[in-house]
């Protein structure tokens, strides 16, 4: 076995192990050299990214990868072996790519952005831990393991939200976030216990199989409700979104970027539970989970944009924009489910017209939202770095001194409001098209939200970057090169995705959508020699 094959075999474990080990090596390296520590963090995330892309090429060409921690035999003396299993399919790897891109950009951006802060050894440790937790949630195939990674992500991100402890609001946002996360995670654990008590299994594929055999019992319904409520809360869907603008708005900008990834990891958990674990029963006509997701999505979009209009704080405004964007994903995926549930019983998710299109659009929007909102957060961070100000009422005329930042903001603004030729347009068009088939009102609300987003961000562009030069910002200079580089990476990906959406959809998003709606691929290891 040559070295590449060996690395590939162990890639799922190494993707988690490398940032975890790196996290606890960071304080040691920090003793030797501050600069060395920053570069070490960048290298750690870089190596993890290599493993993620290595896995991506394998998964997309050869199907799901399974990695077993513990016994390789599924049963010993007729009893099921309890072990942790990582299962990486096209959807997991799609999310992991988003997560690792965000993490890499965040760590590069932090190099200059956090330079003047103290306690950076803890900052980098927590940042790498958050990356570990996020990737773990995306790769794991075990319910309890999912809960553990959910908690790792929550603890690390709450501590990072409150990183600027000299600001009262940041500490309050951190407290709010940890309280909400913990309640959510405890409900997830309770639901896992219900499922374990019924099926004597913690593995997602195993539970899915048993669930398919037993039908849809009352206890399964309770567990499903708890899981959906908790993960939607962690995923920032209205009306459980109130922690999100606070946490996004008060965290350092690099952490806001990573929080987008953590939120989407929770949404991934929601989709995984609904489509894979409950995959065999969820598309039955009698179950209206699809409509619930559609309604949550609509409320989320409307609340997000309406609240964004009245914000006067730059980062809080983007936080509400992020809430609105999350609504699109729930709307699209819910639409896919509803179309199938309304159709006659012979039609499945793969064959129903427009159902696949809706789900593809929703998943494509996950990556686009991460990039667009992420870029806007980085711009807000750059403005804060240069002026130490986030209030929209006090900023103005910055385009004169910060021309690259302004260009990046314009790219982000056009992408987030879904204008061609940027990536937001590609996914939103898919969403408008497919939701129209279910009910025209849905697509009207979606388009209206996009228009409002455009209006809101044009207002921000005007009040922050345009207008007369303010005397107190005369000495403002452009931000350091590493921050510009981080923004340029995201802006570059946005433009490439916007110009060649078909390439991304065919190679990355459609395999993920297929993996989502068709859980037999995920369950195949049960029969396939493990």
């Amino acid at each position, binding site marked *: 076995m040559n070295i590449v094959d060996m690395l590939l075999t162990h890639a799922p474990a190494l993707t988690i192990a490398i940032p975890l080990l790196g996290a606890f090596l960071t304080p040691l390296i920090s003793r030797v050299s501050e600069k060395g520590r920053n570069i070490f963090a960048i290298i750690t995330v870089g190596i993890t990214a290599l493993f993620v892309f290595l896995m991506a090429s394998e998964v997309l060409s050869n199907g799901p990868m399974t990695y077993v921690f513990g016994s390789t035999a599924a049963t010993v003396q007729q009893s099921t072996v309890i072990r942790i299993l990582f299962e990486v399919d096209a959807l997991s790897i799609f999310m992991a790519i988003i997560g690792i891109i965000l993490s890499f950009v965040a760590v590069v951006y932090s190099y200059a952005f956090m330079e003047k802060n103290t306690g950076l050894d803890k900052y980098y440790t927590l940042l790498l831990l958050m990356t570990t937790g996020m990737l773990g949630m995306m790769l794991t195939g075990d319910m309890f393991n999912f809960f553990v990674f959910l*908690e790792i992500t929550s*603890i690390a991100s709450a501590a990072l939200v409150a990183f600027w402890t000299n600001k*009262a609001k940041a500490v309050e946002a951190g407290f709010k976030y*940890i309280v909400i996360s913990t309640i959510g995670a405890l409900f997830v654990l309770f639901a896992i216990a219900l499922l374990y008590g019924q099926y004597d299994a913690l593995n997602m594929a195993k539970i899915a199989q048993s669930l398919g055999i037993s039908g849809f019992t009352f206890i399964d319904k309770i567990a499903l409700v708890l899981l959906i409520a908790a993960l939607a809360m962690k995923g920032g869907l209205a009306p459980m979104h109130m922690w999100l603008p606070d946490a996004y708005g008060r965290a350092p900008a690099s952490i806001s970027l990573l929080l987008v990834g953590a939120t989407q990891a929770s949404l991934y958990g929601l989709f995984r539970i609904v489509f894979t674990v409950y995959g065999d029963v969820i598309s039955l006509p009698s179950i209206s989970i699809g409509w619930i997701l559609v309604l949550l999505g609509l409320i989320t979009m409307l609340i997000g944009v309406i609240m964004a209009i009245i914000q006067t704080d730059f980062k809080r405004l983007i936080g509400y924009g992020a809430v609105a964007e999350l609504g699109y994903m729930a709307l699209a995926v819910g639409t896919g489910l509803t179309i199938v549930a309304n159709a006659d019983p012979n039609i499945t998710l793969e064959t129903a017209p427009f159902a696949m299109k809706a789900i593809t659009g929703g998943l494509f929007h996950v990556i686009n939202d991460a990039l667009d909102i992420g870029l806007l957060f980085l711009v807000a961070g750059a403005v804060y770095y240069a002026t130490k100000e986030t209030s929209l009422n006090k900023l103005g005329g910055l385009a004169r001194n910060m021309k690259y930042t302004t260009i990046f903001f314009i790219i982000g603004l056009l992408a987030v409001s879904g204008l061609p030729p940027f990536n937001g347009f590609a996914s939103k068009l898919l969403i408008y098209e497919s939701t129209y088939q279910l009910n025209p009102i849905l697509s009207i609300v979606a388009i209206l939200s996009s228009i409002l987003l455009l209006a809101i961000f044009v207002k921000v562009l005007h009040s922050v970057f345009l207008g007369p030069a303010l005397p107190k910002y005369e000495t403002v200079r452009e931000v350091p090169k590493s921050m510009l580089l981080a923004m340029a990476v995201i802006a570059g990906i946005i433009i490439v995705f916007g110009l060649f959406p078909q390439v991304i959809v065919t190679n990355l998003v459609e395999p993920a959508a297929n993996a989502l709606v068709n859980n037999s691929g995920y369950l195949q290891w049960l029969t396939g020699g493990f």
Partner: protein
Amino acid sequence: MIANIPYLAVAGLIIIGLYTLLFKKNLIKMVIGITILESGVNLFLITLGYRMGSVAPIFTGNADNPVMSYPVPQALTLTSIVIGVAVLALMLTLVIHIYRHHGSLHVSKLGGDDQ
């Protein structure tokens, strides 16, 4: 009937925890509420693994009572307790910081202007 008492305790603990979170305005009491909620979930896990008249799942070579309770929920509970300690420590740290900023732990005193 007697076998259901642990489940009633679980329901009681979870309801007390949620009540505390929803209606108490003191941050420390909210933290206590989360801890009670967590105890409820942990008790539920432990109860799931119990079998009538069983012993702890450790091989001692003593064959008198071969019925053992399930070890997996106990491992899960242990993990959950460890996570709970970390969360509790973080929450209390944040409460200390909030107290330093506002001189109060009452929720209505929080907020206000930044910095």
